[in-house]
Each structure stands twice: as C-alpha cells, then as structure tokens.
C-alpha cells in the first residue's frame, strides 16, 4: 500500500512530531519552536501524500507504455520548492507576515514553473524541443527575476560590508572593488576569446565572495560609531539642547539650504546672534512670520565651535494638566556651515506666555524673537 517514498516522508513526519513534543516538554515551552517544527511536519506529510498519490512516479503494470523513442522525464525540483513555500505560508500565518509572503511567492513561483514544465514535457517526444518551448514561456519571467534577486543579494551584501567596516576601510574597499570590476570588465571586453567557463567562473566567484562577505559582515553587526549613534537617536534627530551625543551627521547642513526659499537668515558670529529678513537690508533681533504657515529660515554658523539653533514654538498639552514645550532645531552645525529649518506656528504670539524665540543652546543672553501677529 505504502510506497518507499511515502514511507520515508511519513517516517520523517512522525519523527518531527515526536521531536516537537520532546522540544516543548524539555527545551522550550514557548510557541515559536514548536510552530517551526510542526510546520516541517506538515511539509513532510504533504510530500508523503504526493508520493503516495503518484506511486513514487513509477509506471505501474497495465499503464500505457511510453511511445517508442520517448526519453525519460527529467527530475523536477518544483515539488520540493512548493512544499517549502507551503510550509512558509503556514509558518508565516503563525509567526511573521514576511515569512508568509516569502512562502506565498515560493508557492506561486513553484506552481507556475511546475505547471509549465509538466505541460512542456508532454508537448512532444523531443526533449530538446520541449525544453525550448519551456524556455520561450518562462525565460522572460525567470531572467529578470533572477537578475533582480542576484543584484539585490550583491547590493545588500556589499552594503552590510560597508556598514561593518570603519569609514577609512570602507573607502579603501570601495576603491578596490570598483577598480577590480573595471579591470575584470575591461579584460572581458578586450579578450572576447576567453573561455566562457572562465568568465562564468570569475563572475560566480566574485558574486559568491561578495555574498559571503556580506553574510560575515552582517553577523558581525554595525561598526561601533553607528551603533552608538543609533542609541543616541541621532538618525531621528531628537536632541535640541546642548549636544551630549558623540556621533551624528556632521555634514547634515550640506548645501541644500542654499537653494531653499527662506524668510530670514540667522547668523551666529563672535558669540552674537542676529537675523536678516528677506528683502530688508539690515540686521534685527526680531522677525515676523504669518501664523499657520510654514516658514523656512537658514541658520549660518560663523562662530568658532559647532552649535545648533533651537526654536521655541510655544507649548502644547500632552495630557490633562501636563504641558510641554514645542521645540524644533537644526542639527549641530559646523563652523562656516549652515542648515535650513522649517517650522509652523499656528497661534499668534499673544497665545504664548513666553515669546517664541530662536536660541543657541549654551549661549546665554542671545536670542531672536519670532513675532506672530
């Protein structure tokens, strides 16, 4: 009744169920591990069912004999991929949406491939012809997807390497990698007589090398300054007081502010904070903005140390009886650098007990008042 193949998979199913029971009882009673093991059991049970249904793919006595000259069918990996996909779908439903979607993609891809392959293998008795029509159907899908996956793996792997090594090493690696690609590409272009196997071998070796480096770098984690910067929340820029962090984007000011449409330029020079409004050719300590409208200013640091500009924009009630200040600020601005800051003040000045101001944390006695009529 049971075929050898189905016996194998049924055995595996029983074994995995037993292991999952033992795992839950002795190792970890949480759901995660058991779900993974039971998902494997479901997969092997499915394979057992398939083996039983098609009698391990053997031609039984009494079946129609293959036509003369017919070549044996090729083995197919798609049942296995479909099983993995199915397991992923089930496991994903219980664990994480990403697992579910990866499983679903694998299941759909296997279904399409399996369908087309089965169809093409029965198209004629000529194996070469069958393979060609399969290619015509599937290569327009397979090649772009494979290229996308391949490039994705290389890009992600390379980015992991760059995030793991120091900034200096990163620059060197980038130069070497770029030079190597240029050199190898030039050789391939100049020597078209090179053996195809050699070209493929070099490309595969390079791709595998990058992927392996990426896996190693990812398991090693981010370099120290990035880890610290993440802990200091500098990527989300939450620091509006005196800078207490060590790692942040020192070049955040860039040059984009030069192209921004600004209503005032705030400058810190020799410890003095001054403002210059659009269209008015004189410095001032008071600037006026319309309410409820985005206003963009530029902060220019002409002082002798890195500082930031902080805008006090009134207060807001965060819960009953609790009021907190609304602040906005630039990042730390290097000497002779600048950054744009955009904010909106909804209420007129009279709505705030304290005037709206622009200040530089750590610099006493200097502020620009923002008047909102």
């Amino acid at each position, binding site marked *: 009744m049971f075929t050898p193949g189905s016996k194998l998979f049924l055995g595996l199913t029983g074994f995995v169920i037993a292991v999952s029971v033992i795992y839950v009882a002795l190792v970890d009673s949480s759901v995660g591990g058991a779900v993974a093991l039971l998902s494997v059991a479901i997969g092997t049970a499915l394979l057992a069912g398939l083996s039983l249904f098609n009698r391990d793919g053997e031609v039984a006595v009494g079946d129609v004999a293959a036509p003369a000259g017919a070549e044996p069918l090729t083995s197919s990996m798609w049942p296995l991929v479909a099983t993995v996909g199915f397991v992923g779908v089930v496991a994903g439903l219980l664990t994480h949406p990403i697992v579910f979607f990866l499983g679903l993609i694998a299941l759909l891809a296997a279904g399409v491939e399996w369908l087309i392959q089965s169809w093409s293998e029965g198209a004629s008795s000529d194996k070469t012809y069958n393979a060609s029509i399969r290619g015509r159907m599937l290569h327009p899908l397979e090649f772009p997807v494979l290229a996308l996956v391949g490039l994705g793996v290389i890009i992600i792997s390379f980015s992991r390497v760059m995030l793991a090594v120091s900034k200096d090493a990163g620059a060197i690696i980038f130069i070497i990698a770029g030079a190597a690609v240029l050199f190898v590409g030039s050789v391939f272009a100049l020597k078209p007589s090179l053996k195809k196997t050699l070209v493929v071998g070099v490309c595969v070796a390079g791709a595998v090398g990058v992927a392996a480096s990426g896996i190693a770098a990812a398991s090693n984690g981010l370099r120290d300054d990035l880890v610290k910067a993440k802990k200091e929340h500098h990527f989300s820029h939450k620091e509006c007081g005196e800078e207490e962090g060590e790692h942040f984007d020192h070049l955040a000011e860039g040059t984009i502010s030069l192209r921004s*449409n600004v209503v005032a330029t705030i400058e810190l020079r020799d410890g003095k904070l001054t403002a210059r409004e659009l269209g*008015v*050719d004189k410095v001032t300590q*008071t600037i006026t903005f319309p*309410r*409820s409208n985005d206003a963009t200013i530029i902060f220019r640091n002409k002082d002798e140390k890195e500082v930031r500009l902080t805008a006090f924009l009134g207060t807001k009630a965060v819960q009953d009886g609790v009021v907190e200040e609304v602040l906005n600020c630039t990042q730390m601005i290097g000497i002779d650098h600048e950054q744009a800051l955009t904010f909106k003040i*909804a209420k007129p000045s009279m709505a705030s007990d304290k005037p709206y101001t622009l200040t530089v944390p750590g610099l006493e006695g200097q502020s620009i008042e923002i*008047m909102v*009529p």
Partner: protein
Amino acid sequence: MSTKIRRIVAGVSGLAATSFLAGCAKDAPQDTWQPKGTNAKIIDDLQQPVFAIAGVIGVIVTCAVIYCIIKFRDRGQAMPEQTHGKPALEIGMTILPALILAGVGVFTFRTVFDLSKTSDTQMVVNVTGQQWWWEYDYPAQPEMGITAPIITSGQMIIPVGTKVLLRETSRDVIHSYWIPALNGKRDAVPGRVHTLRLDADKPGIYAGQCTEFCGLSHANMRMETVALSKEDFAAWVANQLTNAKSPAEKTLAKEGEGVFLNQCVRCHQVNGLKKADGTPAIAAPDENVWSGAAPNLTHLMSRNTFAGASFDLLSPKCRADVWGASSETVGKKYLAGVSEECLNQTDLRRWLRNAPAMKPMYADPAKLTSTNGKYRGMPNLGLTEDDIDKLVAYLSTLK
C-alpha cells in the same frame, strides 16, 4: 466700390470702432493703462511703445492681407507666373522682425531688472493668500511708526510715496496678487516667499483681483490697496496697535460679544477679547479651517469691505462718497471707518445668516472628508435672528 466690399468695410470699421470705444470705460478701477505708482509706470513705459510697435505692425499686416484678398481674388483670370524664392526679401523679412524683437527684448530685460529692485525698500508687509481672502501682517518697523506687528485683511494700507515690499506666500493653493494701478502681478505659492514692490503716487483706493485660479470662489477673491498720506497712515497705525475694547455692560453689543465668544472665536481673533474667566480668548482657526487662518476682526470696521473684499461694509451711498473722494480727502474719509449710519447692514446680516449662500465655499460638513472635516471658507453657523442682531451690534464696535 461694390455693395459687397462696402459691407465688409462697414463691418470691419464698426468692429474697430467698438473695440476702440470699449477702452473708454469711465469706471475701470483695474485698468492697466492708468499707472499710479513707480513700478506700474515702469511697466507702462514699456507696454506703451511695445503696444504701438505691435499695433503698427498689426495694422500693416492686416491691411496687406486684406489688400491681397481683394486685389488677387479669383475672377476667372489666368494663372499668374509662378516663381520660387526671393532671397533678398526672405532675408529682409527675417532680419527685420529679429531686430524689432531684439530691441523690445533689451527694454523688456531692463524693465524686469528695474521691477525686481528691492534695495531701497522703506516698508515691508507680509501678504498671505488663502481661499479666498488676503491677509496682511506688518512686522514691527519703528521707523514707520509700527512699534508692534499689525494684522489686517482684505485692504492693505500703505503710506503714499513709500516703497513697500510685499513678501507674498500662500497657506493652501497658488494665488496671485495684482493691483494693476500699482504694479504687475506676482504669484503667492505655498512654501515659497515671493517679493513684489509697490508704491503709490497719490492717496486713493486701488482695486485688485486674485489672478491665479484658486478654486470655487476665485472670482470673489478681491483686494484693495489703500494709500494714505503719511499723517493719515500714522493715525491708521496708531489705531491698529490698540486692542478692542469690551462694550459697556447691559448693551446689545455686550450680548453680541457673548455670541462672538460662543461661535466666532473658534476661528476669528479679536485682540483684547477676554473670556468670562478673564483670560485672553485665542482663536483656533488651525483646528477648524483648512488653511489654518481666518481674518482677524479686531478693527473690522476700520476697513470698508469684508469676506475677501467681496462685499462692502459701507452702504452704497457712503461707499460712493469714500471711493469717489479726491486724493486730498480720501484719507480722512477712509479713516472715519464704518459708522452706524454707513454700515451696510443688509449684506453683513445676509453673510451672518448664511455665508456660503453669498460666496461659494466648501462649507458643507458632509463634504469635508478630504480636508479632515476642516472648512474652506466660512460655514453657515445657523445663527438666530436674535444672535445676528447682537453680533451686528458687537461687530460695529470693532473700529
């Protein structure tokens, strides 16, 4: 001359005469051919000769075409000799227009640079457009007597003979500010600040119109610039720097203040208005209006229009008296504001009764899903006639 030709000539002459006479409108406050300020005159100095040149060329071309149509019309004559190419004529007809355009271009560029000059600015006004009204705020400028910021809407007041820089922006969509008698137009774009310089030679009220389609009530988004003598401007500033005073107890206006606090202060600010507990009443248009702003009404009756300058606060007779005043008397008449006798109660009451019925706005609560329930314009507040009486009495005190 045949009957047919006589008809054509008569028709063309009639059309030309009609067009010509159409330019003689008596009441044309947005006439671009009557500049009243430096920049408008700079534009006029360019457009007059360009128009003359274009007109002459237009007349020559039109006459040539008409001549050819008549002279060479098909009368069954034999096909004339066919020639190809007249190099001298072709080169000449290419070079001549190029030279004319180059000449116009030189003066146009010079005009553009002249108009963009801001270095000698004497006063600054922030101009903010939103659907469908203009807000003006004056930064503190002690040298102009403005010791604290001033905010108003609809009508912008400037001192005569003063180079005023407008810093234009918008809170919602693109608008365009244009007072034809004082300068060209300039777009007010959300997120950007554009500058435009104005000045007026003589005291007067100069009308304008938003010139960038900005939605449902674009046609009702009007504005005026009122130029006052320096003394009158100082008086206007002094008045604007004061807060509104609460009406006397047990008056209709005092009851109207209560209605205002109940209904209107959600969007409209009146500086100096206090709640029952004595704390300042702060409007929250940012929570109720899509643009985040509604006109400040502290000195509503000091201006003589409302609702985006679409309607007059002055009765027709009083309006004619102020708008038709000479440059010597317009300042005094304007500063008198809107008296009880001159108040256009009809339009003000209609507005309070159902604003969207007078000026199309997106104010139907059932249709505000795209703006998260916020209004674009003033909604129908469902006020009773009693409330309207009280409100009119209160608003009349906001001088």
